[in-house]
């Protein structure tokens, strides 16, 4: 079997100075290219902390994170930022689009911010990403002019515009009605199948988890039920 796209080994994450709180306690996870995985667990179990560690937004207190063949533990902030921007895509529960920018600009910003300058090519890729999520007529609308489902689709377009190897989605349907939630999920599934984008979806919704290839369950900072 090929090397995993993401390999976590013995991840420990502790918070606090005087009183140490262990949010992750020896987590081992491996994600392979093209997988569509759900991460479930009760509130306070460490899901968001794990997602932050996987997303290179937070450094573990102990353990190794290997992403796309790169051992990340020793990387400085600039290298982590570059790796994060070029390898990972993020979809948050609340779309977290920048309110003062249009849908197209929001989609262009990750690559624009990484490269430093805009270009016609960049714009074209942004338009293609929005067309792929069915929002070709909403490109120049700001987030406040979009519905919740549309905004989340823009967020997906933003996350996928750079063709990331791994998409991290934190409750992507948690804030949507059933119809919009299904649309968003189908969209993620479609990209996973067409582009072989690995997806890790944090969810409370068992119906969403059931539709994933694999479910990872975390309780009290430990993986308790890795399912094949």
């Amino acid at each position: 079997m090929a090397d995993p796209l993401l390999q976590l080994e013995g991840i420990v994450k502790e918070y606090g100075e005087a009183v140490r709180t262990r949010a992750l306690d020896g987590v081992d996870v491996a994600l392979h290219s093209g997988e569509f995985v759900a991460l479930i667990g009760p509130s306070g179990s460490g899901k968001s902390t794990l997602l932050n560690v996987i997303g290179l937004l937070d450094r573990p207190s102990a353990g190794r994170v290997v992403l796309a063949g790169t051992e990340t533990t020793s990387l400085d902030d600039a290298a982590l930022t570059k790796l994060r921007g070029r390898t990972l895509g993020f979809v948050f529960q609340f779309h977290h689009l920048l309110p003062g920018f249009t849908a197209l600009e929001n989609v262009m910003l990750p690559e624009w911010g990484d490269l430093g300058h805009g270009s016609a090519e960049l714009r074209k890729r942004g338009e293609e990403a929005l067309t792929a999520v069915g929002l070709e007529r909403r490109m120049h609308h700001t987030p406040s002019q979009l519905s919740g489902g549309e905004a989340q689709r823009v967020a997906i377009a933003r996350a996928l515009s750079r063709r990331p190897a791994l998409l991290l989605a934190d409750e992507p349907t948690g804030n949507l009605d059933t119809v919009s939630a299904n649309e968003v999920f189908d969209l993620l599934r479609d990209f996973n199948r067409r582009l072989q984008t690995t997806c890790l979806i944090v969810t409370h919704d068992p119906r969403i988890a059931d539709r994933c290839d694999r479910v990872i369950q975390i309780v009290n900072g430990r993986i308790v039920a890795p399912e094949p």
Partner: protein
Amino acid sequence: MPFEWFVALRYIREARGQTALILAAVSVGVAVIVFLSALIGGLEVSLIDKTLGSQPHVTLHEPRETARPLVEPSPTLAIAREIQPSPQRLRSIDQWPSVLREAEETDGVTAASPMVTGPGFAVRSNATSPIVVLGVDPERFVAIIDVPRKILRGRFEAGGGRVSIGSTLASDLGAEVGDRIHVSTTEGVDDVVTVAGIFMLGNEAVDRTWVLTSLRHAQSLYALPGGATTIELKVADVFQAEQVAVALHDRTGLDADSWMTLNAELLAGLSAQSGSKSLIQFFVVLAVALGIASVLIVSVVQKSREIGILRAVGTPRHRILWVFLIQGGLLGLVGSFAGCALGAFLARGVEGASTNPDGSARFLVQLTPQLFLYTSLLATGVGLLSAVIPAVRASRLDPATSIRNG
């Protein structure tokens, strides 16, 4: 467009209210600086113009005569003595034509004029006035002091028995153009001359005493045939006059008095005025800086989640830093343009609102391209500096925390 500029401009546009307020604050601050600088600069130029309108920038003359003791004290000889100051007599500068040439060739000197000057009396009818006779080479002299421009009546002449006199002296003597006055000098020489022109240089002491005649005539009045008691100089930069004077003193051994030493009180006043201006400028700049910094700090707090998202999706710290530095610089720059316009408008308004009886402006203002350039650069620099703390703060935001708590 570069990412940093695009985001900075969008943030400025997005926060219209805040942007308008801080731009107004920067504009008012810059306007105060422009207005004050123009007013104080104008006053400074006006005072210096008035002062230098009736005196040379540097005057060379023989050193004062001092009594020389016949015997000096020694370790074995103590002397109790009183040395009385020597009376000063009019003396010609030794070899003055060569000194004149040397002075003319000195760096910074733009004009030089030999002169014989001494005290005397002017008499007309029953009126007698103490005078100062200035024997000049008219062509050279007008390059030092522009008398023809200050002629009230008649025309500037100095030679051939015709003189130009100050307006107050003319009034004291009851003399008009064409009248003859009797001139007697301390050397006991008398002559009768005709008033060809009456001038007003704006300096009461000058207008009350000066009688301008030719160099040759003054030489005969003071029994200094072929002599010159002083050499008057004009320099390119009036504030370099003292340096030129020191250099000429070192080179010629003559006493060299610059207008700066003769008008030390005026310079001290100007310096104090300039100090006050700098102090006001400092506090205005401080207020502007604090205004820009506080607005940007609020902006960083308001946009911390957005910054966290930008960082999460791959934007490096330094680009976030520049987004806020650019905002600070732009606020300073745009505010400075508006402030320069407002300051210039106010300065011109004050200049036009108050006039002297002769119609000239009572408050002269000095609005120069250098003032606008300096103020714009200052405001932009202050904007940039004020943005440093907010920008560093923004660039150091932890993306995970900002997204969670933003």
